[in-house]
């Protein structure tokens, strides 16, 4: 059992060291949501009135509304970027070091996903701290209650990223997947607008957003931040995390890329 623990520690530590060495990655991960919060939200505050909707007990500013969505945006980009690094690792050969470990491959990949998720959480809490000073102040206990929700969402998005990266032949192709996955997931969700606003605009757009897993991820975090619980969001996120992780592990095989190149 100790071997598994040491292995997990080693994988998390390596991810942490790489993160520390790439400080620009930390800042760029923060710049994106901060621009949305400080510039985009400020501009849209007057245009978008937010009615009283769960989990909020009163009228809220637009900035308050979008903070959970922006926190999930960090997790979304990091999850995909983490998977991108696995494509890079696979192409550069360093993935081989991980895979020649005698421990089970499923455990190694799960550890890698957990390491990516933990690093993402640091960035989310750095963002929430800045948002706090900007005036978006959820309950203090909400920040703690959101931790498991954020971890689950981070794992969900990392597993999705790994699943997608398994189908990618070369590193360059990942950029296309980013455009076809990240932006639709983010914009067709409740991250920036409540679903009732979407319904006012278009019924089919509303349904697209309602069925988007990212909407449930955002709502899980939003509810947790305000010390409320959304069973539907939890069920969707938990179920999809298990499904994506299982599919990612089952379809992960370094020889697939070689076989495709050879065929």
């Amino acid at each position: 059992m100790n071997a598994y623990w040491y292995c997990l520690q080693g994988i998390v530590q390596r991810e942490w060291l790489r993160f520390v060495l790439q400080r620009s990655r930390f800042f760029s991960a923060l710049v994106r949501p901060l621009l949305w919060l400080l510039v985009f939200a400020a501009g849209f505050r007057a245009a978008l009135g937010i009615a009283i909707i769960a989990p909020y007990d009163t009228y809220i500013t637009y900035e308050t509304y979008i903070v959970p969505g922006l926190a999930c945006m960090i997790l979304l980009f990091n999850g995909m970027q983490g998977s991108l690094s696995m494509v890079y690792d696979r192409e550069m050969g360093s993935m081989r070091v991980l895979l020649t470990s005698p421990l089970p491959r499923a455990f190694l990949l799960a550890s890698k996903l957990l390491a990516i998720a933990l690093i993402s959480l640091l960035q989310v809490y750095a963002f929430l701290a800045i948002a706090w000073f900007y005036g978006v102040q959820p309950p203090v206990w909400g920040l703690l209650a959101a931790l498991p929700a954020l971890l689950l969402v981070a794992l969900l998005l990392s597993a999705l990223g790994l699943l997608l990266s398994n189908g990618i032949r070369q590193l360059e192709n990942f950029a296309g997947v980013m455009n076809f996955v990240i932006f639709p997931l983010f914009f067709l969700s409740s991250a920036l607008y409540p679903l009732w606003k979407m319904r006012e605009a278009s019924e089919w757009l509303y349904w697209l957003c309602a069925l988007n897993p990212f909407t449930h991820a955002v709502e899980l975090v939003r509810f947790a931040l305000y010390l409320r619980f959304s069973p539907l969001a939890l069920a969707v996120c938990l179920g999809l995390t298990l499904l994506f992780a299982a599919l990612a592990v089952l379809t992960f095989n370094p020889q697939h890329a070689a076989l495709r190149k050879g065929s």
Partner: protein
Amino acid sequence: MSALQVQGVSFAYGPRQALQEVGFNVAAGSFSALLGPNGAGKSTLIALLTRLYDLQHGDIHIFGHSLRCEPRQALRQLGVVFQQSTLDLDLSVQQNLAYHAALHGLGKREAGARIDEELARQQLGERRHEKIRALNGGHRRRVEIARALLHRPRLLLLDEASVGLDPASRLALNQHVRTLCSEQQLAVLWTTHLLDEIATGDDLLVLNRSRLVAQGPAGELGDDLAASFNRLTAPAPQPMEVGR
């Protein structure tokens, strides 16, 4: 007991056959050289030996453990140096080694002691805090060997480990691995396409166009190893067109 038994291994990339019915043994504590021109199937064989690729046909045993049935026990006996460097250039020597130790389930204290020991053996003790990026090719290869030996394997695979090194570094690396082999009773499978890395006393395996075409002590291939190798790896004659 053989360190490595490869039995009837075949592998294809789609329609392209990379290995056909390859079988050989590597004795415990011996230095074996797997020789073959580029594209002969050496790297595919290494990928199969390290379980990066799944076996399609045949089986591989490492110290009696089948890669199919007991992959964990088999991989524990195995250290690998890949052709392409797999070190993290931005991490230090020590950090790279510590990562590998963790992947093999070694605790910090035990890993620390083994890192000290291996770095001393590779004469890299003073460079432990340097980033890999700052090391030359020869030293990087030594770090990879230290890493491959950290979990104390009994079989060491080196896949064209000397590629990219200058002649002096190539020779030094080859000698260094031979010394490790004799001092630690380590079985070594050294793959190469360069004849000057082979000594007459080595067990030689010659791979060409996906098949094992010769096997035995290098000295038995004849006095002129280069001529024998050229004969064994000569391209297949092109079919002649007749009757036009």
